[in-house]
């Protein structure tokens, strides 16, 4: 079998990890118990690995907030001193079975949703939604104060126990049917989860009400679920991550298994080159701001790991499923369809689970092949949220994964597999 055949075979298997996956939300546990390789005194962040000194302010603030949240420092000054002394291990969340959405700060005590992929025999942990919008903002947005820390503790101590009891009783909630149906109802499951939220609520709420717990306690959890915008986002990310992990380490595969930014650099990972990052300057997102007071000067280059959903064929790949999201950027229905059609040129296969009315019931493309990106010059379209340099979400939009990432990855692939050395 020649190398091209080996690649084709490996890519088929890698893509099946994405299309045949079977993810269930099974538990909520401390990160220290469900994130593989997460040690004590270790802090994870979004995007490719970056040292504290080279981090953007949002990540630095996240490091400090994690130190305070865990009780590893008594104040900000001490936290910075300890981090700079090298006592704290810092790593990319995507080097583990988790996802660093937003700033992606994860430490051992943070409660995480656990997603079990029953086809791929993998698990992924994702940071839960932080509740309805409140003045203090969110940890995931690069903000931190005692109110935010208190909210994280409240979620862990008060809101999650009823959810855990429900999951123990029903054996888990299937994620894939919700993703599949919502894709036919206007979600692309990166920027928009409106339909997925409702489908999730329809399944989960009756089961919560059936628990033998005080009504007041159940209602706190119910309100947290229904009042949080894009509540389902973390489940889509967890399902995507669990599927992508299954392809990591697959020899000869040229499929992309991670796409993420840290506000400075943007990186990708390739299935057959596990543990390696291929980076370029983080791109700027084009889109719409939440207020006219914001301009590009306020906007941080790409930060966050939520493009795990693009890796699994959603978000920017699935633009045709959500012309509503694309229209926020002034795109027409035809242009939304064209975006998904364009992505067909760089993907290994299509996903029979995601049949889209706007594509005349064709399936969405899935499994980005770095070779096809290089051949066609078409860079993957990625949807996401815009962050301010000061912290906080200021808009939503789209960017393209830099070509340089794929060029570097191809050279590394050749160094491993070329016979022409």
């Amino acid at each position, binding site marked *: 079998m020649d*190398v*091209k055949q080996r*690649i084709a075979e490996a890519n088929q298997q890698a893509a099946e990890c994405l299309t045949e996956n079977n993810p269930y939300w099974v538990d909520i546990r401390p990160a220290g118990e469900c994130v593989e390789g997460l040690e004590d005194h270790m802090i994870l962040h979004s995007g490719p690995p970056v040292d504290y000194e080279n981090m953007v302010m949002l990540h630095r603030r996240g490091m400090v907030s994690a130190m305070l949240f865990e009780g590893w420092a008594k104040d900000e000054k001490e936290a910075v001193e300890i981090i700079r002394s090298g006592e704290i291990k810092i790593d990319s969340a995507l080097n583990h079975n988790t996802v660093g959405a937003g700033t992606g700060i994860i430490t051992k005590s943070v409660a995480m949703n656990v997603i079990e992929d029953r086809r791929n025999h993998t698990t992924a942990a994702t940071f839960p939604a932080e509740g309805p919008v409140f003045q203090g903002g969110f940890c995931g947005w690069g903000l931190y104060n005692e109110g935010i820390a208190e909210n994280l503790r409240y979620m862990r101590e008060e809101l999650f126990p009823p959810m855990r009891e429900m999951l123990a009783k029903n054996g888990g909630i299937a994620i894939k049917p919700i993703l599949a149906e919502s894709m036919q109802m206007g979600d692309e499951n990166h920027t928009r989860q409106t339909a997925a939220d409702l489908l999730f609520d329809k399944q989960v709420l009756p089961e919560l009400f059936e628990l033998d717990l005080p009504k007041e306690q159940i209602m706190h959890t119910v309100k947290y679920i229904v009042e949080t915008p894009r509540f389902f986002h973390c489940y889509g990310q967890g399902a995507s991550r669990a599927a992508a992990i299954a392809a990591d380490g697959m020899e000869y595969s*040229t499929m992309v298994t991670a796409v993420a930014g840290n506000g400075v650099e943007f990186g990708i990972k390739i299935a057959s080159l596990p543990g390696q990052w291929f980076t370029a300057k983080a791109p700027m997102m084009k889109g719409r701001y939440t207020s006219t007071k914001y301009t590009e000067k306020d906007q941080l280059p790409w930060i966050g790991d939520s493009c795990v959903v693009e890796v699994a064929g959603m978000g920017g790949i699935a633009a045709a499923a959500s012309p509503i999201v694309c229209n926020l950027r002034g795109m*027409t229905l*035809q*242009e939304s369809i*064209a975006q998904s*059609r364009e992505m067909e040129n760089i993907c290994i296969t299509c996903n029979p689970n995601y049949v889209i009315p706007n594509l005349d019931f064709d399936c969405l493309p899935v499994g980005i092949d770095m*070779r*096809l990106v*290089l*051949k*066609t*010059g*078409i860079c993957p379209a990625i949807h996401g949220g815009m962050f301010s340099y000061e912290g906080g979400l200021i808009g939503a939009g789209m960017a393209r994964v830099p070509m340089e990432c794929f*060029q570097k990855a*191809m*050279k590394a*692939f*050749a160094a491993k*597999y*070329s*016979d*022409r050395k």
Partner: protein
Amino acid sequence: MDQKPETNAEKKTGIYKDKPAVANLGIMLFYQALADQGCKCVQINWIPEYKQSEEIEELLDEFL
């Protein structure tokens, strides 16, 4: 009033006699503007072949 004689090109194509029919390559905006004006047109999704560096092109020959 005397009519201006047709040029050879006009005789061949009839470009000023009939409504134009357009096949648009590339920019969708141009297609949309023509379509909005009632022009018969089709959009052809074509982009020029992308060229990488010689090194990457050689690797693509080997692996794709």
